């Protein structure tokens, strides 16, 4: 095979899997078409009786120029489908998985693979500007081609408004940007982009998700929560949802630390280590597992959004978030000087090495899905109804694991003002059990925040 798949081939591969393994997988049509009117699909894998078990979500093709991401996800799916259907295990260099491992993936969990989140950007990178990173949304461009596109991995609703939430000393282009000409332009609002809404839709629809993984390249890392600042596990009130700390985040060592309980930190560290170890074992290329902030602080990133959901929306299952930054600036097994590592995977030799290295990491990720304990998902969360804004149709996922259209519901969409108040109320409830002065201060801060938002809202409602 040898070279990077076109976006058409990624979609055709999913059709092939669905028709070849109809009892093991099916495609899931995402509700939001891209700016260039492409329909996206994910692949649901797992036997129907695994529907009530924990689930994992893997996405690729977010940053257009990171070429091998969709191919890794497609080939991972193809390998495990073939292995399960033939009753075999899988081997990648020095790393092997038994037939029992593969059996677990299909019988004890659901895996959702979304290979190409950003097909518009990927297509543009393949055929026009190879270094393109963002999507192709021109909304903020003012017809300037240099200002087209939004960085999908800065558009999630996690500390998106970085100038409000982060210390001004942390404002730089890697955190996020308000400038459409910058590669990390975060869009006009959180979830302004169809691509992020599609990922969020999968997270809402599969309410039993416990692990999330986003494939990127090329720093040779396995990143885990958090990405906005250093982790700390001593002060529960010091957290992203607490407005008392707005303007203080993102400067390492400055006193702010993002709360992660010691138990969660140990769990997520162990999962990241298992992913890393699986990739290392292939040919001895050493990946590094570390908190995402170790790369640089970020705002609006997918992995932090995934983990933040259970904190701001009580009742949701806890979902640890990961980012694999596959490949390295140099590879000791390849000739020198290396080609641009973002694009080098188009070289058949590097393509082959990359897929062999990374697919074991994804299989190891899957094998962690049912090894972590999760709180039971409330029955109402299993029936979350979603709307496709383009068509006005409503959807939910049935007990058969498939998407079903449902009759329209009353309008559930709120104004920005109401959503902001709702977010603070959720944060208030999330820290309701925090005892002592720290808890009191945090709750008072949230109540003041609600009062302030309500006051501003009331001013706008005043009749002149």
């Amino acid at each position, binding site marked *: *095979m040898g*070279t990077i*798949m*076109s976006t*058409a*081939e990624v979609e*055709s*591969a999913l*059709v*092939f*899997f669905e*028709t070849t393994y109809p009892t093991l997988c099916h495609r899931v049509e995402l509700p939001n078409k891209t700016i260039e009117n492409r329909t996206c699909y994910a692949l649901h894998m797992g036997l129907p009786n695994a529907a009530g078990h924990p689930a994992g979500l893997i996405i690729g093709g977010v940053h257009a120029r*990171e*070429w091998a991401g969709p191919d890794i996800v*497609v*080939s991972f799916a*193809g*390998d495990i489908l*073939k*292995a399960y259907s*033939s009753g*075999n*295990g*899988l*081997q*990648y260099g020095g790393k*092997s998985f038994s037939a029992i491992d593969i059996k677990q993936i299909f019988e004890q969990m659901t895996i959702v693979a979304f290979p190409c989140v950003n097909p518009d950007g990927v297509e543009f990178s393949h*055929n026009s*500007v*190879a*270094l*393109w*990173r963002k999507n192709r949304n021109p909304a903020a461009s003012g017809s300037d*081609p*240099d200002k*087209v596109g939004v*960085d999908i991995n800065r558009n999630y609703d996690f500390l998106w408004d970085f100038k409000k939430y982060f210390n001004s000393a942390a404002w*730089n*282009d*890697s955190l996020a940007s308000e400038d459409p000409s910058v*590669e*990390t332009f975060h869009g006009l609002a959180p979830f302004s982009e169809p691509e992020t809404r599609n990922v969020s839709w999968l997270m809402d629809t599969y309410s039993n998700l416990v692990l999330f993984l986003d494939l990127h*390249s*090329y*720093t*040779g890392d396995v990143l885990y929560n958090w990405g906005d600042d250093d982790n700390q596990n001593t002060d529960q009130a010091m957290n992203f949802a607490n407005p008392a700390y707005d303007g203080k985040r993102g400067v390492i060592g400055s006193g702010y630390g993002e709360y992660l309980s010691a138990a969660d930190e140990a769990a997520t560290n162990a999962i990241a280590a298992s992913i890393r170890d699986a990739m290392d074992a292939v040919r001895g290329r050493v990946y590094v597992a570390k908190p995402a902030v170790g790369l*640089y602080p970020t705002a609006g990133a997918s992995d932090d959004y995934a983990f933040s959901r259970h904190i701001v929306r009580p009742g949701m299952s806890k979902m640890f978030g990961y980012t694999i930054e596959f490949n390295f*600036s140099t590879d000791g097994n390849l000739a020198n*000087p290396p*080609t*641009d590592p*973002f*694009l*080098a995977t*188009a*070289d*058949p030799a590097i393509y082959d090495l990359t*897929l*062999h290295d990374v697919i*074991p990491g994804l299989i190891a990720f899957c094998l962690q899905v049912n090894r972590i304990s999760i709180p039971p998902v409330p029955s109402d969360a299993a029936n979350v109804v979603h709307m496709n804004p383009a068509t006005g149709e409503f959807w939910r996922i049935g007990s058969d694991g498939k998407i079903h259209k449902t009759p329209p519901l009353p309008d559930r969409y709120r104004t920005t003002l109401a959503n902001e108040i709702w977010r603070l109320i959720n944060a208030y409830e999330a820290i309701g059990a925090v005892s002592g002065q720290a808890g009191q201060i945090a709750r008072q801060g949230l109540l003041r925040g609600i009062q302030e938002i309500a006051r501003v809202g009331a001013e706008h409602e005043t009749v002149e």
Partner: protein
Amino acid sequence: MARKPRSAATATAAGADPAVDNETIYRIRVEMSPHETVRNLGEFRLDYCCMPQERDERSSKKRLHAYARGAVIAALRKAGRKVEVLADAIAEGRRMQKLISKTDRFEGGKRGPEAIGKLI
């Protein structure tokens, strides 16, 4: 990264330190001191996201991978930064684009991708 270069670049392999064209985009490495963060390079508006900061074990200095136009490289050097030009990134991109599939080898789903792992 949308702009295209006005002229072909002359950059070659790492370490050659060629003359650079102001409008061409290059793949570069910028030297940083051991405890510096990327914040210190903020004024240059480099495109370095998802790219590594290598540590040189001998000097303990860091080298940030990035893309930059020739004009930015000149500004970095003027500010005393050591910059290594690795390649003309646009030309490199065009070369690699030729290796990407332009068809549908899977014929709309009649065929699938070849296996990567070995069945055991």
